[in-house]
């Protein structure tokens, strides 16, 4: 395949293309207001960030960076790069994630607790040279086993990949609208760095909903100085959920390309998105470590074509081997996916078998999952050695709603039936010991069951004061619904009633407050309880749903909770908290 020529407007990061651009030129598009943002404004922001960072430390630092706004993220990143620093991009802004990374970094920047932000006053920027071999940034994977893995990228690696993208998909001045997080490699490359290198405007805010997308594209059609069309950086979750009427008639034809990455898009979802958005969907296959590997447009079938410069081959078992300028390591590198090579590319066959060593025996986790998923009530299964318990397996099973166990007896019967079925193929030591039955698949923003979700699902094993966490559904920032189960080993059960242990009411209130702190960022000091009712006792082994809603009163935040089980309400009430006095140091 001949490589298309690199567009003349494209320049590598290390040449700092933003440095030479005319100040009056459009850098970004304020899509909500329908007006351009000039480079002069961004240069002033870059300078302001540098002045703030200079006040903290000399160059050569590493900073933890998390900004929700793509534009603010871009100026902060340019500012620190042009100072001679590098960035650590946390995968999300959960306290556990940040705590694990903070020690590596001089300070946290952006939308983070105690995050440094630039002064509003503009300042002239300065441009130190950027060495291609220097580390530009570190990213983190969110794997379901073990700790998130750190991946370093040099400027040379990023530039190699950006050049390949520019050849295949020149932006030609179109507006880049992103629906994905730029804290991950795909959103970073496609949503931020491509437009910066190619001089194309990026949308100043993240586009969260299909309604926003429709409105932005509609406004693009009206505005006099608007960019000539738009490119959408998306992913399977938003594309699969696109309403039929996402694009208003006025905006038809404004979108000229759609990208999707993170997971393969089903053929049906690809066709649906193509019809609704009126433009082909070009998928990118890759990972944080490898960068992009291949791309496809499903109008031409399911075959993936390697990106320019990337070489792919299969070993005897179909395992994918990769040689790529976007990888940190030279030479052929084995990957976890299996492929079937063809004349024009390859088909993806899924992950290679996941193998675990349990009690000295090798076990295919994939095989165990397939066996569990044979049962008609099991919609999805994931088996894994538990963190801190390498010889014990856990299993996360998504069950049909009618098959979810709501009390101890049904749960025991369910586990016994699953074990009976496995007993035909597995010795007792290779059977999961800890079972988690969920109604919907617990996943992170990338749609994956990540390490944080796994830790939540099994944390009752290490803390006998906690309920068993079985998933959360959030409805906006102030409401959520947590499913939980009462472990038989719960320490509070001991000695309450000798014949029939129940969870004491005060414990249910504690759980409500703790889960609201975790999922709704509730902060405050306990003040008062009101309208407390415990209509039915909650027994060991029972499953229940805890609805939490936080609102703000003059006195401080107030939490309303309702705990409902199979036979009705177990607890409800309100907790009034007082605003916590927080001293903001430094």
């Amino acid at each position, binding site marked *: 395949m001949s490589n298309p020529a690199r567009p003349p407007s494209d320049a590598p990061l290390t040449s700092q293309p933003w440095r030479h651009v005319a100040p009056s030129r459009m850098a970004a598009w304020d899509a909500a207001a329908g007006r351009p943002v000039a480079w002069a404004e961004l240069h002033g922001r870059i300078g302001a960030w540098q002045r703030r960072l200079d006040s903290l430390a000399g160059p050569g630092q590493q900073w933890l960076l998390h900004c929700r706004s793509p534009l603010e993220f871009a100026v902060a990143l340019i500012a620190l790069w042009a100072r001679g620093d590098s960035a650590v991009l946390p995968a999300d802004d959960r306290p556990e994630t940040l705590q694990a990374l903070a020690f590596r970094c001089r300070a946290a920047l952006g939308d983070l607790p105690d995050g440094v932000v630039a002064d509003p006053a503009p300042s002239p920027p300065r441009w130190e040279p950027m060495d291609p071999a220097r580390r530009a940034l570190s990213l983190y994977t969110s794997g379901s086993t073990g700790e998130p893995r750190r991946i370093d990228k040099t400027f040379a690696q990023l530039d190699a990949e950006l050049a390949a993208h520019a050849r295949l998909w020149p932006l030609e001045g179109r507006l880049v609208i992103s629906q994905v997080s730029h804290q991950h490699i795909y959103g970073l490359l496609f949503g931020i760095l491509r437009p910066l290198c190619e001089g194309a405007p990026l949308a100043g805010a993240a586009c969260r909903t299909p309604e926003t997308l429709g409105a932005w594209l509609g406004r693009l059609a009206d505005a006099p100085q608007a960019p000539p069309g738009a490119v959408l950086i998306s992913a399977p979750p938003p594309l699969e959920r696109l309403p039929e009427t996402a694009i208003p008639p006025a905006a038809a034809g404004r979108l000229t390309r759609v990208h999707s990455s993170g997971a393969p898009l089903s053929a049906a979802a690809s066709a649906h998105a193509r019809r609704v958005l009126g433009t082909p969907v070009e998928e990118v296959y890759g990972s944080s470590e490898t960068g992009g590997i291949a791309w496809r447009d499903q109008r031409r079938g399911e075959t993936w074509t390697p990106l320019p410069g990337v070489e792919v081959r299969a070993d005897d078992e179909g395992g994918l081997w990769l040689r790529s300028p976007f990888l940190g390591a030279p030479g052929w590198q084995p990957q976890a996916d299996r492929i079937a090579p063809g004349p024009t590319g390859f088909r993806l066959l899924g992950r290679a078998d996941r193998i675990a060593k349990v009690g000295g025996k090798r076990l295919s986790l994939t095989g165990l999952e397939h066996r569990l998923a044979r049962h008609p009530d099991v919609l999805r299964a994931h088996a894994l050695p538990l963190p801190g318990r390498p010889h014990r397996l856990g299993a996360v099973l998504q069950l049909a709603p009618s098959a979810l166990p709501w009390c101890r007896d049904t749960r025991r019967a369910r*586990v016994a039936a699953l074990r009976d079925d496995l007993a035909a193929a597995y010795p007792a030591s290779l059977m999961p010991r800890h079972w988690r039955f969920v109604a919907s698949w617990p996943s992170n923003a990338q749609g994956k069951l990540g390490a944080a979700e796994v830790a939540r699902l099994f944390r009752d094993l290490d803390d006998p004061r906690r309920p068993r966490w079985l998933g959360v559904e959030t409805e906006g920032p102030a409401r959520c619904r947590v499913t939980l189960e009462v472990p*038989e*080993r719960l320490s509070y059960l001991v000695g309450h009633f000798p014949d029939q242990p129940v969870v004491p009411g005060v414990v249910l209130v504690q759980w409500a407050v703790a889960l609201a702190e975790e999922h709704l960022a509730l902060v405050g000091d306990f003040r008062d309880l009101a309208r407390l009712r415990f209509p039915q006792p909650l027994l060991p082994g029972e499953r229940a749903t805890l609805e939490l809603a936080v609102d703000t009163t003059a006195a401080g935040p107030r939490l309303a909770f309702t705990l409902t089980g199979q036979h009705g309400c177990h607890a409800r009430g309100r907790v009034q908290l007082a605003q916590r006095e927080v001293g903001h140091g430094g």
Partner: protein
Amino acid sequence: MASPLEHELKQLIIETLELEDTTPEDIDPDEPLFVEGLGLDSIDALELGLALQKTYGIQLEAESEEARRHFASLRSLAALVEARRNA
């Protein structure tokens, strides 16, 4: 009626092996602990052996015929602890 020692051993088994859905009442003192019955495995045997040593000072070779006999049921395990404790 379970003896206090039997109840104590049931608690020990549940705690040591982190049995999720099991309460002391679920353990039939005459049922086999391993494979059928509670469905415990060879790793459980090792862990249980360790716990018995820590709690009662009893040493058992986990792979031995003797251990197999004592681990047959909760009742036989209780008899072992009773005998060794008073020895």
